[in-house]
């Protein structure tokens, strides 16, 4: 057994080798799938393993996780280097999140990412960091979604339905109550949506980009007894898209029109595409038809009524680059997947016109009748 520095130096052939020999031995902890146990005991055993290692064996640890990109991330504790600060933060975040998840799972309560972030703002620095590290945890453990952690993003989407909507595996206050606009309830991938009443009155499902328009439409519930309205307030979150996907599956046999309305700007088109396409099937809503607002219609409307002038604005450099990027994307997609040709052409024509006119417009100026009756 080598014990002195002199001996170590003698045995080492190079400086590098010596440094390696001087480094403390680390125990490697692989974050991985565990098919046998449920997530709670899996997290618990991992936490226990690391605690034991540090407390009882006085040994450092190296946690190996998988990135959403597919590469692996290694975080060491303790870490001897000038860059140690960053590493310490990383392992602290990782352990804090694991601990939080464990607590939430034990107490069976659901919390939002926002809650987790505000639990220790000093450590996380930004909410996106929390999302990022949850992504790492999710991928390392081979989970389909992070819902199983009992940590969900704060709800963003709103919906309105003229009939009650129920979800299996949801608590009572999570159902969608008829004729009342409210947040889209927390649902998980395996929850099922159903209704008890007759739904033949529903002829339309309308998705709207803007909350303002959504609110305008839901003021008089009697006018929209034939519609289910959904808004994602700008770019939709996964919950809104999951909800639409469930609705789509539920209504697949009935003859209902699916429509999406956004601002007449490149971001509006981008938002519509977000609803329509996602790599993961469960967040798709392929039935949606892009119905505008089209720039040409808003311009025509402005020409007819000069009081509505304010709604037409110049494109910003960011809009221009987004529009160019989207046109390219759509054109490539049309080549590889001709099935969506007509749909993509509508998007492309709209973007081309916005670029050629150098203008964008907001959907707010369209009249309510346009959405309900068109």
């Amino acid at each position, binding site marked *: 057994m080598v014990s002195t520095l002199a001996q170590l130096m003698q045995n080492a052939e190079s400086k590098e080798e010596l440094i390696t020999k001087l480094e403390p031995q680390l125990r490697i902890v692989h974050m991985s799938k565990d098919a046998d146990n449920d997530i709670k005991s899996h997290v618990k055993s991992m936490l226990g393993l690391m605690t034991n290692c540090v407390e009882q064996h006085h040994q450092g640890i190296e946690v190996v996780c998988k990135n959403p990109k597919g590469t692996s991330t290694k975080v060491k504790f303790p870490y001897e280097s000038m860059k140690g600060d960053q590493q310490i933060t990383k392992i602290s975040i990782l352990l804090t999140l694991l601990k939080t998840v464990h607590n939430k799972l034990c107490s069976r309560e659901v919390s939002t990412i926002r809650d987790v972030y505000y639990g220790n703002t000093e450590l996380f620095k930004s909410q996106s960091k929390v999302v990022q590290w949850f992504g790492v945890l999710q991928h390392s453990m081979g989970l389909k979604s992070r819902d199983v952690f009992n940590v969900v993003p704060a709800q963003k989407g709103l919906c309105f339905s003229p009939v009650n909507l129920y979800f299996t595996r949801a608590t009572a206050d999570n159902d969608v109550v008829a004729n009342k606009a409210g947040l889209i309830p927390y649902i998980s991938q395996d929850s099922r949506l159903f209704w008890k009443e007759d739904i033949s009155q529903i002829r339309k499902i309308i998705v709207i980009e803007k909350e303002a328009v959504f609110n305008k439409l839901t003021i008089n519930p009697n006018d929209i007894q034939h519609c289910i309205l959904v808004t994602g307030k700008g770019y939709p979150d996964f919950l809104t898209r999951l909800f639409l996907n469930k609705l789509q599956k539920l209504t697949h046999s009935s003859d209902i029109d699916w429509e999406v309305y956004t601002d007449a700007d490149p971001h509006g088109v981008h938002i519509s595409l977000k609803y329509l396409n996602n790599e993961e099937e469960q967040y798709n809503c392929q039935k949606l038809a892009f119905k505008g607002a*089209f720039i040409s219609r808003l311009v025509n409307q402005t020409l007819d009524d000069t009081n509505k002038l304010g709604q037409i604005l110049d*494109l910003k450099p960011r809009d*221009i680059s987004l529009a160019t990027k989207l046109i390219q994307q759509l054109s490539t997609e049309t080549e590889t997947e001709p099935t969506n040709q007509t749909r993509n052409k509508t998007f492309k024509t709209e973007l*081309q016109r916005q670029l050629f006119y150098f203008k964008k417009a907001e959907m707010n100026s369209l009249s309510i009748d346009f959405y309900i009756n068109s």
Partner: protein
Amino acid sequence: MSKIFISTVNVGKAHDADIFGVSVVNPFTVTCSGDGSIKLWKNKLLDDESAKDTVIEVFVHKTGVHHCETLHTVEKGGNEICLIACVSFSGEIFFYSVDVKSGKYEKLDLLNAAEKKRSYWAVKWFKSEDQVVCHRFAATDVKGNTLVWRFHPFTEELDEEKAMKQKKTDEEKNAKRRGESSGGEIEKVPKQEDDEQLENLVLSPHLVLQGEIQPSNPIFATCVDFSGKGLIATGFSNGSVQVAQLSTLRPIYNFEGFGIQGTDQNSNTVRALKFSPMGSLLAVANDSGSYGCVTLYETDYGERIGGLTVPTHSTQTSIGSYAHNGWVFDLSFNSTGEYLATCGYDSKVRVWDVKSKERVSTINLSAGDIEIEEDILMVDENGDSLKNPPVMGVRYINKAVRGGMGSETNEGLCCVCLDRSVRWYREAGGS
């Protein structure tokens, strides 16, 4: 005096998507569209030919094409060159060389790797009538820069400075000789070019970057034009126009503040600008809210000399005067510079007498005008009516460019509309 224009030929459903631009040269009328192709419509149709049968279609880029500009010249040694430059929605410029007789075309690669990296919007050719000045090509990019290239048709490049000096000395010599010869007989200086030189000419169209004009702040540059008097003008989406000297690319004038400034309602995007053929006037089309204005500038001193307006009797618009009840998309002078054609969102083409600034003709377009009934497009894919289609581009056509009765002696017009049609007109009367 009013003018009357008669519809001669029209083609409905000329493209599969919106047509954004038109350009006319002697052999062809070229249109470009969001469907990604440009089409070359033969100008001289025989009696039994229809426009659609003889059209040459060139697929350019899948993202769609929004600008096409053509250059048609006959160079030394009788070399006929017909080049088309077009810009796709991906911001790339594509060049094609067309053999006028056979209609065969060939894609050219005229830009270098660094130049290709930019995202372009508008392009323009300048056909030089002066032996000592090169043809030019200009393109604006989305950041507001205007790039200018010299176009050289042959491997041997023309050195403008040298040629200019040579011309001056020749002129001086001429003048001296004129002074010496008492009888006033002018002896011609023998031409420099000889047969041997002509034989050495190797056709190799290429562009050499002259430089770029930068805007005061980065704004979308929407249009560009050259004047025969050595100026280049760029229009911007914020309503300003920058005029620079072509030889040095130094800005000399900045026109700003059309209409009312400061509010979104009064956005005044410049959509088109054109120098008159002699270069003494610059016509600028810009928005005034949802209306379209055309303003004329004199180019020697950069003075505004008036606008083109229609009388209004509307109670809603008390301020401002406009040329079209909708954005003005394009302008085109006739060959003498006496008349200016404008077109706009209001589905009208107007022809103005430049001197008196009065309207001499208005053509009202309607989707139903198209001769072949099945080619009429009344609504677009979104279900919006195209009954009164916005006119996206207009070009004056010189005498004897189009075939058919009366075209030899009368000028004409060509316009492209949102109902995906191309229409040709000829001025009535005279023979």
